[in-house]
């Protein structure tokens, strides 16, 4: 047994090394993919495959909801199809129960990765538990959000990120993906970030329902051996990293920077704190989240070196080689349309335009975005989710550009998964170029559909 020095809270901290032998779990794992494999899958399947491949993903939990259901169905079918020692799919009675269950598995053994997939009101139903998980230090929890409009009146089962963005403050690391390869690669990398002792924060990869959950593409699946070595190596490398803060998770650096689990530790989790101490817990939570910016870079470098594909970076910059005059900032699958149209936009409008696809939604990469936008003369921000004002993304972009006179035009389009058409992108780019020429935004916000401005609000 190794014990940390006397802690703030007895009996926080003692870890009984060897009481849980994760090597036995790893040895029991039956690889699903022995070699690099190309296959056509949809987004939900791409997000599910890593959970079959990780030996650490011993227990998977779920409750069905459109359009996330196939994630659970794929795992259930695969686990049921053959001998799956050390692998179990658990069906609960509600999303709330799923989130509670994740807390139990993740806290019982912090070396496991435990996850689920949900959507829209399913994520909302988890809220009570999700917000606790976000502050728990359980970085081994992953909730895949298959973005869907929320909530009802009217019900719309197609994808927009209003669920993801309503949960910005839940404490999770939120990442937007588009396309099956990006979904798969992102899921592969996130536990290495969330479980890093400097971060210890759960993760929430996301992709738009229907547009990406149900769209098939060619996916390169890496062999299980490489997938597991990548995560194991990342966690081993992080063992020496000191936690960012001393120390409201009682990690205190040194031998066990990650607190013990309930099974292998003499420990308490989820205490009740007075308000004075609460400040410290919340400061530590913010600091752990801020550490994502550094750790994500390290993990991306490692991913690129091992697999030869782009690692997870906070932003995708397209058309930035020649210092664009205007930038269109967006997220999700419709960024692909904008990238495809970039040449046409430049040609028809006679303006150097660039596209920025946001990958890291929370914590928002303000510094990286500010640097990318340093020379542009106008920014168009594309919001796909309902917001009371100029849009979630717009507020973040404006915050990143604080103090600059660069005009920012706010657009809403693609709500409820609506098509963001060629004509819409051209209209958005034209309006942004006009703001650049004018030196100020024309309206407070605009809603655009099929190239037409169907509503908006004038500047005050």
């Amino acid at each position, binding site marked *: *047994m190794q*014990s940390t020095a006397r802690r*703030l*809270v*007895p*009996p*926080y*901290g*003692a870890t*009984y090394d060897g*009481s*849980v*032998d*994760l*090597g*036995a*779990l790893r*040895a*029991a794992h039956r690889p699903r993919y022995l070699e690099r494999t190309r296959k056509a899958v949809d987004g939900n399947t791409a997000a599910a495959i890593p959970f079959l491949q990780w030996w650490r993903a*011993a*227990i998977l*939990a779920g409750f069905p909801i459109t359009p996330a259901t196939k994630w659970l169905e794929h795992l259930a079918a695969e686990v049921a199809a053959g001998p799956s*020692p*050390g692998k*179990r799919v*658990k069906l*609960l*009675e*509600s999303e*709330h*129960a799923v989130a*509670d*269950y*994740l*807390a*139990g*598995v993740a*806290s*019982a*053994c912090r070396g*496991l990765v435990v996850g689920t997939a949900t959507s829209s009101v399913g994520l909302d139903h988890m809220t*009570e*538990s999700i917000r*606790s998980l976000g502050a728990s230090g359980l970085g081994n929890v992953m909730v895949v959000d298959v973005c869907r409009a929320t909530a009802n009146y009217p019900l719309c089962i197609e994808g927009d990120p209003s669920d993801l963005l309503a949960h910005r403050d839940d404490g999770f690391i939120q990442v937007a993906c588009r396309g099956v390869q990006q979904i798969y690669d992102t899921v592969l990398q996130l536990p290495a970030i969330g479980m890093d002792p400097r971060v210890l924060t759960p993760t929430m990869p996301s992709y738009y329902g229907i547009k990406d959950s149900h769209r098939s593409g060619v996916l390169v699946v890496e062999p299980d051996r490489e997938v597991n070595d990548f995560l194991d190596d990342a966690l081993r490398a992080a063992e020496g990293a000191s936690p960012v803060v001393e120390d409201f998770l009682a990690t205190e650096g040194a031998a066990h920077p990650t607190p*013990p*689990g*309930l*099974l*292998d*530790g*003499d*420990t*308490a*989790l*989820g*205490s*009740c*704190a*007075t308000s004075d*101490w609460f400040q410290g817990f919340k400061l530590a939570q913010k600091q752990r989240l801020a550490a994502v910016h550094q750790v994500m870079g390290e993990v991306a470098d490692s991913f690129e070196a091992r697999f030869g594909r782009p690692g997870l970076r906070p932003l995708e910059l397209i058309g930035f080689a020649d210092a664009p005059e205007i930038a269109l900032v967006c997220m999700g699958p419709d960024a692909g349309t904008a990238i495809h149209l970039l040449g046409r936009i430049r040609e028809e409008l006679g303006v150097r335009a660039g596209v920025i696809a946001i990958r890291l939604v929370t914590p928002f990469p303000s510094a990286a975005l500010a640097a990318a936008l340093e020379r542009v003369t106008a920014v168009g921000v594309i919001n796909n989710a309902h917001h009371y004002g100029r849009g979630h993304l717009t507020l973040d972009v404006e915050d990143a550009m604080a103090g600059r006179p660069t005009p920012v035009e706010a657009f809403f389009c693609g709500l409820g998964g609506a098509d963001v058409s060629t004509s819409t992108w051209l209209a958005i780019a034209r309006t942004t170029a006009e703001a650049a020429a004018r030196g100020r935004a024309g309206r407070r916000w605009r809603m655009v559909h099929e190239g037409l401005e169907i509503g908006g609000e004038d500047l005050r």
Partner: protein
Amino acid sequence: MKKALPLFKELALRDDAFGEGHSLCPGCEEAVTFHALGRATDNGKKTVLVMGTSCGEVSTLAYPNGVAWGRGREEPNEVSKSVGVIHHVFESAPTVAEAIRDTADLLAGVGAWSGAPPNVLSWSGDGGALAIGLRSFLHTIYRRARVALFVNINELFANTGFQYSPTAIPFGDASTLPGGGAAEPIDHIGLALIAGAGFVAQVSPGFAPLFADIVDQALHCETTAVVFVPSPCIAGWKFEEGMTAELGRLASKTGLFPCFRKRAGEPGELLHVQADKRPPVTEYLARQRRFDHLIRLEDGRPVVRPGREPEVAAIQAYADRNVARLLRLAAL
């Protein structure tokens, strides 16, 4: 040959997992229960305790004044003596406990956990299990999870200031229902049995030998064990110091919260209550000022306030029906 001690005396010699540092009210029965659980779980197995939000949680997991859980003054040398305790969200305790059991079982199945199967207990208040937490509670039972669910029943939401709870007997004063209401308590024992619990019991730690036996049976149950712990609340019920255990016993003897024990598929039993020879409920009610609008003690004897006879009679009728109902459940 040395005669073996009865279990409840043998437990007194074990290492307690509940100690100093809690801030439960003086006279709170939860502290008595926690000591009993703390000793019963010193059985050579790792212990994991899951707490739903409740008096018991906020009073024993305070940061930084001290967590009242843990065996010994220093961390024990063996994992089998150690305690893992978690508080998650209000109504989640049964589900979180189930997850911990599943994890332990899965690890054991591949040889990653070589110790004895751990003790996995959950602790909920009556709100956490039978009001906001009824879904979680029933579905964990329905799935036959191998966990021991302990439910503290004090007929109030005590932690938040003594609001009405669906476990309350009629006409008890509550901060959200002054003077109480006519509704009878939710059939918590029936619900647990029908949901499929392998072992269901109701017992106050005021009956120490029986309490020890029932906790031991719950910890050895191969499916879900449910133990309801009627728990006099000195702050919410407003009774005199020193009456905690006595009121717990009277709750059983009057038939309002009788001791009950039943294994699935076997006849159950009512204990510490006589079906046809019970003290009247007035003996119980008059000692609690939450019923002061109905009845009070005068010279040590219960006196019903004029005009409130119908309410007191209704409570007595409920107690009579409750005993009959539990006898039927025991016979299932």
